[in-house]
């Protein structure tokens, strides 16, 4: 480092540009992590500057905490289903929009009105999560005023005196939330995959068509392998989103920072916030934060490794 600092001109210039972002990153990203790690070994309440060192007590308590373990399980479920469902749907739609149309004389094209569909699909992405939770709150509303309940009652599928309490049903609540995430995400990944598909040279498709490949074959043999990089990136992003889920769960479900009914929609971040801000167990919450960080990092590495493939040049 010392010769860089001493060197004037080019090196000083580069160092200047490197130093400011690095300092910002260290101050606002790394330092809070270090602090969190430190606090996780204390019984800090979050309301006063005094606390005692309690060693690994918080981590030991975490292992026995059934609520946190349940939350972890929910996060893992979401981790599997959010990327899987979102990516499959997005791939399907993207393929239909870009290459699903009848192959005419002009070669490969999307289904009719595909431009319109792209806008419609992307629309949910424009809405913020806060608006989304209000919107779906009205859809899942537990009395006959809810969109779903009103619809099902109208069809005579459910009794008006016993409407489905969507977000208050232990077995439904997590899937209801999953649907919101998928609805929100599909549009974005559709556009992402569309862009990737459009960069695939048309002659590859045309060659496949000339050889007599059907739609399914074209998709699995041509499109998917060429899109693998995008799919991989999407899986990591969606995985990180599934590890978070804080906004939706805390605004849509019952309980302080959500998680209801009776912890059935609990995710790690909601348990963390409740302990941090409401129960005054901030040291304990910091231990949860450290566990979350470790898990997210491990999972990202695993996803990237597991999906690693030979890169196809085109």
């Amino acid at each position, binding site marked *: 480092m010392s010769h860089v600092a001493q060197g004037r001109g080019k090196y000083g210039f580069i160092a200047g540009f490197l130093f400011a972002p690095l300092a910002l990153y260290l101050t606002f990203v790394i330092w809070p992590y*270090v*602090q969190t790690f*430190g606090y996780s*070994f*204390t019984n800090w309440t979050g309301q006063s*500057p*005094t606390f005692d*060192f309690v060693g690994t007590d918080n981590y030991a308590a975490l292992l026995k905490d059934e609520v946190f373990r349940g939350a972890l399980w929910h996060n893992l479920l979401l981790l599997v289903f959010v990327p899987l469902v979102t990516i499959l749907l997005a791939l399907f739609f993207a393929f239909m929009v870009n290459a699903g149309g009848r192959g005419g004389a002009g070669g490969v094209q999307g289904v009719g009105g595909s431009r319109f569909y792209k806008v419609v699909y992307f629309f949910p992405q424009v809405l913020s999560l806060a608006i989304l939770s209000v919107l779906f709150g009205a859809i*899942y*509303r*537990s*009395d*006959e*005023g*809810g969109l779903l*309940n009103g619809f099902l009652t109208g069809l005579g599928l459910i009794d*008006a*005196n*016993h*409407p489905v*309490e*969507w*977000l*208050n049903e*232990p077995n439904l609540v997590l899937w209801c939330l999953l649907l919101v995430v998928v609805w929100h995400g599909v549009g974005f990944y559709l556009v992402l995959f569309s862009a990737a598909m459009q960069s695939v040279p048309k002659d590859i498709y045309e060659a496949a068509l000339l050889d007599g490949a059907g739609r399914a074959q074209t998709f699995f043999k041509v499109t998917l392998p060429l899109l693998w990089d995008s799919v991989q990136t999407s899986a990591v992003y969606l995985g990180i989103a599934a590890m978070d889920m804080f906004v939706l769960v805390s605004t849509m479900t*019952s*309980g*302080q920072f959500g998680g*209801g*009914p*009776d*912890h059935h929609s609990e995710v790690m971040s909601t348990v963390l916030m*409740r302990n941090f801000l*409401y*129960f*005054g167990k901030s040291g304990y919450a910091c231990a949860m934060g450290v566990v979350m960080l470790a898990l997210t990092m491990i999972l990202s590495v695993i996803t990237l490794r597991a999906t690693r493939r030979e890169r196809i040049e085109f």
Partner: protein
Amino acid sequence: MGSTGEGLGRRDLIKRSAALGLITVPTMSFLSACASGGGENSTKGPAKAPVTKENPFGVAKGGKLDVVVFKGGFGDDYAKAWEAAFDKKWGTTSSHLGTQEITAKLQPRFNGGNPPDVVDDSGAQKIPLDVLGKGGQLADLNAVLDAPSLDDPSKKVRDTLVDGAVEQGMLGGKYVVLKYVYAVSGFWYSGKLFKEKGWTAPKTWDEFLAVCTKAKEAGIGGLAHQGKYPYYINVVIMDLIAKKGGLDAVKAIDNLAPNAFEGNAAALAAVEAVYEVVEKGLLMPGTNGLTHTESQTAWNQYKAAFIPSGSWLENEQLKQTPEDFDMKFLPVPLLADSKMPLEAIRAGVDEPFIVPEKAANKAAGLEFLRSMLSREWSTIFAQQANSLTVVKDGVDPGVKLRPGTQSAVEALKAAGGNTFSYRYPDWYSEMDTEIQNASNELMAQRIQPKEWIKRAQAAVNKAAQDPNAKNNKRS
């Protein structure tokens, strides 16, 4: 690597910077008080008038009065009306600020040593009272309590307040916070609906169930509750326990007794009574998943006969309530062999008003608080904010109030000394949350009363291990 060494160093650093911060805040205000205070203050500030019986704090005529109030559920019209009355009496010029950003607006002023004279420190962005107290920013309000009451100069202000009002304004052994709003909790119903259907307000739980059954026959729900926030249905359960088991049952829960719920016949009877409503299908359909506004609005649309809530309900629902709804309060009906009478109600205080220690016109601030505790100003508050105050019988009988507030006034009068309150939600938030979860399961018919008792007792036993359990005791 020496990670432990590093850790200790870091903790020292935090402690030192925290200590530095603690020293700096008072020092800063001390310095700025020096800079702007002293001789300058006595020339600029109002001259002190002689202290008399009518003017116990020596308010000078024609000074300035600076009032900041939280503009939340109660609005701030009441404060404007008060200031007008104050200006008229004392010839002061008052400045008014109604805001939700209490901390942002006031922290610099407290730090700079020029705080307002009266503050309603409430809402999500309030300055924590314990922080202000530690910084020596809160004036001792004992002077107000010991001053003569404006309504009856032979009485001290202290003796005109409802029971428990003073204890709940104490901080570190000093009375520094005037919690002004008095809220009662129980059931609410529409006088219009009941008149139309020929129903009468139930006195016992059996009568309550009978009205709910009639409501169901009439095609509306019996009981609505704010399902997404089980706090409200807990009010019903806990009030039934209190009324059947008496104050001892309340204290057993607050003091985390090993038999607070388990082995307590009153508790089981109360939970079974609430469960009966669920079992007989007398809940408003879907109420278990609704928010407080959704369920209360449905109730306002005559979709249910009863809803539990506090006396803030009327103001909260002002826009959704039909003009002729005729909102009425009902103390929780009695179970057989109850130790408390029907009239007994849960009552609590809130909405903290303070006078800053360094207020420019502290005398006027104290006088303002004394005036707030007069019947005239209390009536103004009841009219403008649709809520009761801590002044005993504090609303003029001749004044026309909104029906809900009026019925709460009557219920409070009928209750007399039979009021009670629970402290555990403030003392043990985790226990409160666990009991709320259990209630949510009970209302959804996923657990039975016995299981509820078991879970509630487990929450109590867990809270007994809380370090706070040593400090929090009531007798």
